[in-house]
């Protein structure tokens, strides 16, 4: 068996996820198609094998959450927390994504072809996120490690309280958050952006991006500074 189709209009979500955790992990199929997702929450969460999952339509909250190794594609839009805490693999959203996309992802690649809502890449811990459109306010809040490439604009307080994550924005940034700063693009930055755009299948000039990283002024308590905590 190569590809199996699950129709969420007639099959329960629990059945789908259990199959993906057991039979799919045991290598019984190479690919799974999910039809009629109808915005269901928690589609294909906690996968732990290099399977291909295609969701035809819109997904609800936490689609592809905590993914390890799998390649998950959503042809429509995704709800809050798509690809949250991903460890590895790919989650690719063809449409738009809601709030908290890629939250605390530790690895892997999250691609959102459209716009993403508030707090995209919040608490990012090593994953890579490429957004074809714009991101909402408070994106990359407290992001610790990893990379975000934003091809459109960013809302307010981008990169507030950033640690070591690096952000690249092509469009305008409404405002930077506390401790975030623009930095010059180096050749290495351009190569990073080019590589991620290539993986995401998006066509933009990597030289047109600006780099944002932490000033690291909030890393230590400092009695003489005006605290911005």
């Amino acid at each position, binding site marked *: 068996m190569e590809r199996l189709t699950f129709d969420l209009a007639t099959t329960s979500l629990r059945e789908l996820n259990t199959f993906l955790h057991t039979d799919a992990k045991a290598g019984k199929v190479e690919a799974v198609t999910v039809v009629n997702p109808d915005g269901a929450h*928690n589609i294909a*969460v*906690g996968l*732990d094998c290099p399977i291909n999952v295609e969701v035809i339509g819109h997904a609800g909250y936490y689609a592809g959450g905590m993914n*390890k190794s799998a390649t998950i594609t959503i042809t429509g839009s995704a709800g809050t927390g798509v690809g949250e805490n991903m460890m590895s693999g790919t989650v690719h959203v063809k449409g738009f994504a809601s709030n908290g996309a890629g939250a*605390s992802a530790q690895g892997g690649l999250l691609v959102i072809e459209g716009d993403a809502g508030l707090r995209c890449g919040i608490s990012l811990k*090593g994953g890579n996120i490429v957004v074809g459109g714009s991101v909402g306010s408070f994106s990359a809040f407290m992001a*610790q490690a990893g990379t975000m490439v934003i091809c459109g604009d960013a809302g307010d307080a981008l990169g507030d309280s950033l640690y070591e994550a690096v952000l690249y924005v092509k469009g305008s940034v409404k405002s930077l958050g506390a401790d975030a700063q623009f930095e010059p693009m180096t050749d290495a930055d351009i190569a990073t952006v080019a590589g991620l755009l290539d993986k995401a299948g998006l066509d933009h000039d990597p030289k047109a991006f600006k780099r944002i990283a932490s000033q690291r002024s909030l890393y230590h*308590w400092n009695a003489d500074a005006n605290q911005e*905590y």
Partner: protein
Amino acid sequence: METKPVHFKNVSREESFGYDRKTLDYIRNAAAHGLYEIRGMGAKRKLPNFDDLVFLGASMSRYPLEGYREKCVTKTLLGTRFAKKPIELDIPITIAGMSFGSLSANVKEALGRAATEMGTSTTTGDGGMTPEERQSSKTLIYQCLPSRYGFNPDDVRRADAIEVVIGQGAKPGGGGMLLGQKVSPRVARMRTLPEGIDQRSACRHPDWTGPDDLAIKIQELREITDWEKPIYVKVGATRTFHDVKLAVHSGADVIVVDGMQGGTAATQTCFIEHIGIPTLAAVRQAVNALEDLDMIGKVQLVVSGGIRTGADVAKALAMGADAVAIGQGVLVALGCNGETYYQNGALHSAEADYTAIGAAAGFCHHCHTGKCPVGITTQDAILEQRLSPDVGAKHLRNYLKTLNMELTTIARACGKQNVHHLEREDLVALTIEAAAMAGLPLAGTNWIPGQGF
């Protein structure tokens, strides 16, 4: 001979109530540093607590059980609502969530070993699960915290239950912190942070914002674990009646309520002392909420924050808790605030090391410094040798055994064959404050302040 009366210079010793020496000290400190104070442990102020309640032992109208030998069940089931594999414990006394990072790896191992011997559970804490901890603890509760430091689906699958932490009694509404001294290379790696920075944990979860979202988040955790593992929700005690109701609506199997006496390894003092309500008031509100929803016996309640003795455990259970969780008491059992530590077969004085951090045995709340003189709340390679897993596990096992003996002997005196049969009717309050908060009659009366009329 003419004598003159002797005149002594009159030195005023009238201390101000509002500006007592503690307050003067606080203001001087603030003026010197421009930063709020951060410290460890829980609220130090005097609060109504379980000591303000007493049991009505059996007498003419009740029939007691023989104190030592007669059967008294302590078995405790947690997570029976939705989980396929509920947590089954031999005693209703669990170890509260404390992180590797705040505690040394040796301490985490000691907790796991003692808990496993006693048939109870330990809980991970902020910063992820260590292999030592998973290996030593038979029943391990894995916390899902706002920071998500080291949060990993493999550990979710390895855990016996998941605890979604909304807040902590020491600091409801506030995130944790771990000062640079404790962000060692290993801790930094586990948390994906640069070494040595003063780390601030988030106060809100990154991927959900309210109870309706939490319901979906809990469903995600259930889907990932194929509905096997119980999901706990932990709240710091504030608006406990409503918070517990919302946690039940969100689909929790077990609610953990942590009162303001609950400890922390590092938090602003103004949080520790001024945010949250006492455990006594929180237990009553939590039980009221479960009764209101007809969820008694379906959703279990774990109470923490200032549980120190077997009598405290018995009182919490009688008020309606299914189990308790202990943090600070456990640390004290391991030697926290002791004058000595035991190393290489001998006792050594820790006095000089207390002095060096500006503390003294019995008064120390300096967990945040990472320089714990008795080797508990530290990541220092030399200090952590002061508590070996062997010695720690032995003391903790003894402490838990003592609590359990006290609990069962009290239950027997109240005529109960099962500690979970202890009931509110077995308790009265000694102070009006405790009576009002706990919703129990003042001893010798049928008066519950705030109820009736």
